[in-house]
């Protein structure tokens, strides 16, 4: 009897320790993602200062570097090399405005890749794990939220179409019970794609405006547009190859050939939506 009780006690203790460890791992993962998002927002704030403190930025990047390396492996990107290199060049005052785009927009790309990865991991998960993953997605989203707010301001007079849409999709994702999570996950992906399509358009609109007067500024805008497009490229390529060809051709062409009306049309075709729609 005593032996049985002892065995039962050991089993219960073991199960307790195992489940606590499982929760601990989830908590740690969430904390890491929150730290990533916070660091991303800090880097964005620091780099926009008059005299950026590149040492501090490097310190903040170190918080993100683990996830960046992880995503490089999964997303076939090279940010783990490119971003430190860009920070180094910026601290040496080499084409600061262009190089810092690799840092800022690269981190956004990493965040989106992570969100996509987390959505992917929902497939085989149970309802509780899915809810936890949705919380993690929400944490990563905080890092890219400022972009959504800016594009709402630029294209929809500050009415938070994009931000609100993403928040609604996240809320639905947390509540999803069965395979209906696909709907909210697709909606979230759709809003992310649309926001970054608007980012591409915004930068190219600036190129169109500045090409007669300020070529260096156009270089910066183009660098931003290229990384933003990298974020939505897989979707555009799958939806309409011709749209993808048109967009890449325009990103590679001379500034005089930039035509944002054609670009908008290509982005609409590439994402199968109207990116400038009020809804």
């Amino acid at each position, binding site marked *: 009897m005593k032996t049985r009780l002892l065995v039962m006690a050991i089993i219960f203790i073991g199960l307790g320790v195992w489940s606590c460890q499982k929760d601990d791992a989830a908590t740690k993962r969430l904390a890491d993602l929150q730290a990533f998002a916070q660091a991303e927002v800090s880097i964005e704030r620091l780099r926009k200062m008059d005299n950026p403190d590149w040492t501090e930025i490097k310190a903040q990047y170190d918080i993100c570097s683990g996830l960046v390396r992880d995503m490089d492996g999964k997303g076939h990107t090279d940010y783990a090399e490119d971003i430190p290199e860009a920070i180094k060049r910026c601290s040496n005052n080499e084409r600061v405005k262009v190089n810092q785009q690799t840092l800022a927009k690269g981190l956004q790309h990493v965040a989106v890749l992570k969100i996509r990865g987390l*959505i992917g991991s929902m497939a085989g998960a149970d309802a509780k794990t899915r809810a936890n993953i949705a919380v993690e997605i929400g944490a990563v989203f905080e890092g890219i939220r400022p972009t959504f707010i800016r594009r709402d301001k630029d294209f929809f007079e500050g009415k938070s179409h994009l931000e609100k849409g993403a928040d609604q999709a996240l809320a639905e994702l947390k509540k999803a019970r069965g395979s*209906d999570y*696909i709907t909210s996950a697709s909606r979230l992906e759709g809003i992310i794609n649309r926001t970054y399509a608007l980012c591409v358009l915004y930068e190219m609109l600036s190129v169109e405006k500045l090409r007669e007067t300020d070529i260096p500024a156009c270089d910066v805008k183009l660098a931003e547009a290229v990384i933003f497009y990298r974020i939505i490229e897989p979707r555009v390529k799958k939806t309409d190859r011709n749209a993808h060809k048109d967009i890449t051709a325009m990103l590679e062409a001379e500034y005089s050939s930039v035509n944002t009306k*054609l670009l908008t049309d290509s982005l609409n075709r590439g994402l199968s939506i109207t990116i400038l729609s009020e809804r």
Partner: protein
Amino acid sequence: MIGRPRIDMDMNLSTKVCFYSKALYYALAFMLLFVIAGCDSTKTVINPEIVLIDASSVTIAWLSDKPYKGQVFYHAAGKGDMIQKAMEDFSHSCRHEIHIDGLKTGTQYIYWIGSKETKYFFRTEPADVKPFSFLIGLDDLSGCINNLLMSEMPEFVLLYSSGSGTKKDCCRSIRPYVPVYDLDGRLSGYLKGEKKDQDESWRLDWGGMCLIFVDKAAGLDRYMEKPTAHTTGIIVREAPKAYTEQAIRDSALHARITEHNKKWPANNVAFVFIPGPDMIKRQIDAINYIQMPIKGQGKAGKTAAIRIDVNVESTYAVMLDTDEEITLKMPPLKEKRTCVECRRLAGTGAYKKSVQAYREFIKNNQGHFQIDDAYYSIADILDTKLFMFKEAVEWYNKLIKSYPNSSLTPLARQRLQYISKYADHDYEPLSRFEQIRRVEYLQIKDNSADKQRVLDKAQEITAQYGDAAITPVIYYWLANQYRSHDVQKAKEAYLKLSARYPDHPYSLGVWWEIGEAYYDARDYKEAIGAFNEALKAMPDSAEDIRVQIKRAKRNLRRSYINLVCLFIPVFMILSGVFLPPVGIELNRMYQALLSFIVLLSVFLFASWLIAEQFSSMKELFKITAGAAAAFSFGFVFSYMLSDKILKISMADPEKNKMFSAFLGLVLNLIFAASVSYLTIYNTNEHFLTIFYL
């Protein structure tokens, strides 16, 4: 002082009647809302599935553990369209099937069955010219099918297996989103009775693609006559005796396809999937043969799923595990014939440079390549981008003369036919008009001064070239543009068109157009007048025009009722307050305010249960607040008015207390009905159809 107790008695009775009347109102309001709500939220939904789908309709089926009458709510994704509802035709059942039609082509719809918490989506079949993707599953996809649905966004899934309906369903979780097929047809538990014989050939048409599923060459005949699809593929289900190139070349199937491709070069068979032990691609006589291992019969190798990207000019198969890409249909503009750089330039808007590049390409590659598409591209750029019609005509003619069998020749002929109709005045009016219509007008955003300037420019063309063939088209275009902001000018333009060019086809329907313009501008009186004129001019369309007249009359009637409904509460409030004794009873106002708050909360809750019936939360709030106000504040004024009427007209109110209460109730009914009508009419008049108004 003597009459005081009597007044209190009257008041008590009146208050009682008031209380019972209110209770009756609330009960009625509740009943109304719950009747509209229709169903409760506890209904189960088991195995929802897209059973059938095409360009404009979808059939959704599901099961439930208890019988009920199913309904589906749906709206176009991200377009802010109103939520619509479709209901089952049959009575209560545990097996549900709803058919929805009138959907837009190639559009994603969000839908839910009962509970709003569980939403799904589907996409209608795209238009023929639009690109799309579908997925071929070569292995058990149950572990990854959800992710494949999200990452690849296929329009449908084809399981490369036969008779797998009895096996484990690896696509269960995606069935509410996309249709699933296997080699024998639509793979659905709901269509088991309709399943085809396994040896029967069949055809799957999707967008501009046609897939033919056969066992032997003989099965092809019934599906290959008069082809219309831009991409045709054949999926052979029966394994061949040998897998060598020679065996394929000698097969009856290959002979039949070659014969077809000779006869229909513009609609040729681009690829053939044949079952085989390994995945191998062979190109024989410009037909791509792909050996595909049937699920459970061969080795899929590394590849478990293939995405097929279908486009008008090219089709690719992408092995999702290895990212390897196989071309199933050659893109004519890339692989054999044309200049990538020229296309790149055109894609970026550098049209003149692009034309120059095409000319050089033709010059350098004459005799080496088929360059019909280069001819066509130059003509197309000159025609639709640069509006240099004279030169465009030359290039179209060159194409027709040099490449009479090219698939682009019919298109060139079509454009030539259009341009030649308006070739007078050396293409000048056509060129100026196309520049305005396709470029200048589209570039204007919301600046009405700019818009007017551009429209004036078009007007100038009509003044300058009154006899040009394009002028009636310009009048018609002008009228259509004015419709959105200046109906009077639109009418003038339509009438000018009709007066100056009475025989032009556009002139026939001008009164109908004018009627529509007034209708859109909500000027229904004028619209009815114009529609009546249209009836005289177009007796063949009398039925449709009468429908519009009926709608305009209904809307006119609604606007009159709106005025009456506005007058009634204003009159009752004013007379209730200003008839002697002048004033308002504050106690009743407090009671009304309290009942408004309670009623609003109840109405909001009830409306929330049927929130999908409203197009926005704002609309929901407006209607519920209006209804709550109508039912609560109406009592104050109607009973004040009835008391005062009684006091003014009756010598002895004691004898007429029942009459007072009855009058108050009637007045209150009128007040509530008026305010409710006002609220609905000014929020979303579409809801008035519920009340047959």
